[in-house]
């Protein structure tokens, strides 16, 4: 078999159903073999779209997403998508063509040192120098992306390797002596944690994306109910605990709910599960949760004690550890007073907005929630649209909120939605976008129409790069610099691609437009002309303590 065939045979054996990508000179042998393959190929209109689509597919299904691009510009166009997957620990394989081995280092046409470029944004990467190693490398790559703390792996394959012939040997087992993730928590640590939990009076569970990755959704719910502790989630953790559960406090952090932030600051015990105390979560670090002891469960030892001091670190898989922890907790801590206090905050500081004047974005999202019965998969772009989507849609199940957390990549949501829809064809998929973000990968409209990927895009169109404008309003004396945004007629634009477009100017048109979009068997852009200067509240200013929120109605 030649290298290109080996690649596709390995992908098939790894269970790959779909590849997102773009052809080019140095991947011609792969595309030639793809012609005969049963794996579906989705031609995006930009390599960045391919990477985000593979990422979205992975987030929604838990399977490994695969993207493919040629050397040089094809590969560098993938990099934003790779960095995005890396920051959010998403299992994704990026395959790139490379100039032939004899030309590497010669500044050949469309040559870039792609393993060099992606070293710090991949979990691992490979430059294949011998076709005999190709099968082992692909097998290792799939193992590495999906085990331990997941993350993207890039495989750079020179074109002559794609054409070289060798005997195909499928490695049955993967054994990497230098890579042995820890899955089971230390029993002594788990016992100590159980004791600390029983002794606590004001515990709070702080759940991150690791809960979703490890499939610990049920276990988390069991733990929360057993110890009667409220649960707050990071952006990546939304859906890891039912958003409509009475113990849910929604998201914490910079744009988290006030009650979540107060609860964290007043707690006497934080049980962190698969979360990493990111700066958007902790606010000012030296005054973060001053009364709390911290139990930190994470599969990545380097996440523990990186940002805050941890009392009981437990390294391992969240699901395994929670199962063990639940069985070790003999009794229930008395949290009744605490739950009353938290309920008081919930009542005193609810999420709110003033529903007057122009269409409010919060209202649009509430209506999407109602119209879809909370059953849609939501993707977002980055900025205000993303924060409102965190606040106003309630995610009851894991893998239903797909958003660029760590990297904060504008232009993620739309191509990610394509990947989600391909992975979950029976679900309604909504990208909640801004007029700025949607234009960062708007070319994927062609992909949606061509490949019949039926996603809905709600553009919260305020004529601004809204989140930057909000910061300029609050912290730069309203000197709006570089944020007023001209946009095309999104309805006509969608129609010119063969998609559908709906313009919504009035509040009473919001719900009917959503219903109509859902009824159409097509990709739909809904252009919601919203209040231009609506802000996301509450807000913890950067560098402030978590309970020093700017409240208030815009």
């Amino acid at each position, binding site marked *: 078999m030649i290298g290109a065939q080996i690649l596709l045979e390995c992908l098939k054996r790894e269970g790959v159903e779909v590849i997102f990508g773009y052809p080019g000179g140095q991947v011609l042998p792969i595309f030639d073999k793809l012609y005969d393959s049963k794996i579906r190929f989705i031609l995006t209109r930009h390599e960045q779209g391919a990477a985000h689509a593979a990422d979205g597919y992975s987030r929604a299904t838990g399977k490994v997403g695969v993207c493919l691009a040629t050397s040089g510009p094809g590969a560098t166009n993938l990099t934003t998508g790779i960095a995005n997957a890396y920051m959010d620990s998403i299992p994704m394989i990026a395959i790139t063509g490379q100039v032939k081995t004899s030309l590497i280092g010669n500044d050949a046409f469309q040559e870039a040192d792609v*393993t*060099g470029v992606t*070293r*710090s944004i991949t*979990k*691992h990467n490979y*430059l294949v120098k011998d076709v005999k190693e190709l099968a082992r490398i692909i097998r290792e790559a799939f193992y*590495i992306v999906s085990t331990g703390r997941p993350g993207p792996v890039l495989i750079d394959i020179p074109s002559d390797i794609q054409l070289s012939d060798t005997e195909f040997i499928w490695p049955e087992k993967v054994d*990497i*002596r*230098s*890579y042995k993730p820890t899955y089971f928590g230390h029993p002594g640590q788990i016992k100590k944690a159980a004791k600390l939990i029983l002794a606590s009076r004001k515990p709070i569970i702080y759940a991150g994306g690791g809960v979703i990755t490890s499939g610990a959704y049920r276990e988390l719910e069991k733990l929360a109910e057993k110890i009667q502790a409220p649960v707050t989630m990071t952006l990546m953790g939304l859906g890891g605990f039912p958003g409509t559960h009475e113990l849910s406090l929604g998201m914490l952090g910079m744009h988290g709910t006030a009650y979540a932030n107060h609860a964290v600051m007043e707690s006497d015990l934080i049980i962190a599960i698969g979360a990493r105390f990111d700066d958007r979560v902790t606010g000012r670090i030296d005054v973060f949760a001053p009364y709390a002891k911290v139990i930190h469960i994470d599969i*990545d*030892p*380097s996440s523990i*004690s*990186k940002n805050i001091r941890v009392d009981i670190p437990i390294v391992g898989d969240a699901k395994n550890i929670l199962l063990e922890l639940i069985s070790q907790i003999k009794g229930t801590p008395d949290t009744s007073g605490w739950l009353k206090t938290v309920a008081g905050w919930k009542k005193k500081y609810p999420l709110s907005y003033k529903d007057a004047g122009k269409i409010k974005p919060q209202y649009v999202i509430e209506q999407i929630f109602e119209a879809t019965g909370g059953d849609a998969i939501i993707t977002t772009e980055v900025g205000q649209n993303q924060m409102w989507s965190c606040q106003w849609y309630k995610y009851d199940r894991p893998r239903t909120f797909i958003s660029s957390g760590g990297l904060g990549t504008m232009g993620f949501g739309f191509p990610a939605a394509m990947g989600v829809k391909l992975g979950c064809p029976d679900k309604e998929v909504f990208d909640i976008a801004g007029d700025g973000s949607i234009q960062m990968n708007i070319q994927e409209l062609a992909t949606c129409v061509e490949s019949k990927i039926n996603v809905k895009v709600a553009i919260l169109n305020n004529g601004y790069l809204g989140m930057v404008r909000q910061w300029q309003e609050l912290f730069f004396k309203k000197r709006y610099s570089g944020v007023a945004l001209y946009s095309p007629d999104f309805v006509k634009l969608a129609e010119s691609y063969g998609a559908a477009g709906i313009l919504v100017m009035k509040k009473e048109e919001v719900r009917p437009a959503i219903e109509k979009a859902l009824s159409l068997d097509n990709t739909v852009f809904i252009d919601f002309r919203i209040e231009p200067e609506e802000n996301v509240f509450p807000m913890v200013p950067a560098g402030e303590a978590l309970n020093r929120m700017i409240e208030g109605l815009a």
Partner: protein
Amino acid sequence: MRHTISVLVENKFGVLARVAGLFSARGYNIASLAVSETMDPSVSYMTIVVEAKDEKVLEQIKKQLNKLIDVISVTDFTKKEHVDRELILAKVKFSVKEKAKLENILNKYAGKIIRHAGESAIIEAVGDQAQIKELLEALNNVGISAFIRTGRIALAY
């Protein structure tokens, strides 16, 4: 504070770049670095002297190194009984009447002349960091025209 750590890595191309890239990407400083083969040709040994302002930073450096797929193990010598050495080569110019003085210095620090031509010599010496520093200061009184030293290598008892 400086710490000596040793890292056992897969002997593959690009591994040094991964380690060096990790240090620059996360803002850690390498004071010195020595890489060598081992008895097992598939494995290399890196001795790295790092600058870490506190225990937390040192912990992170070790954890981040361990996260690299090609890193097999990380050993921190900070709290381990160990020996460490550096090698120095120095070109020294001296007059005939200073020869005795030079020989005295070399005797004291177990240095030796390995090349000698007229009033110029290349000397070599091995020692820990403090010894090398003292030697350099002493030689400076005679006259060093050039010198080079290796990174530190270390071995636990």
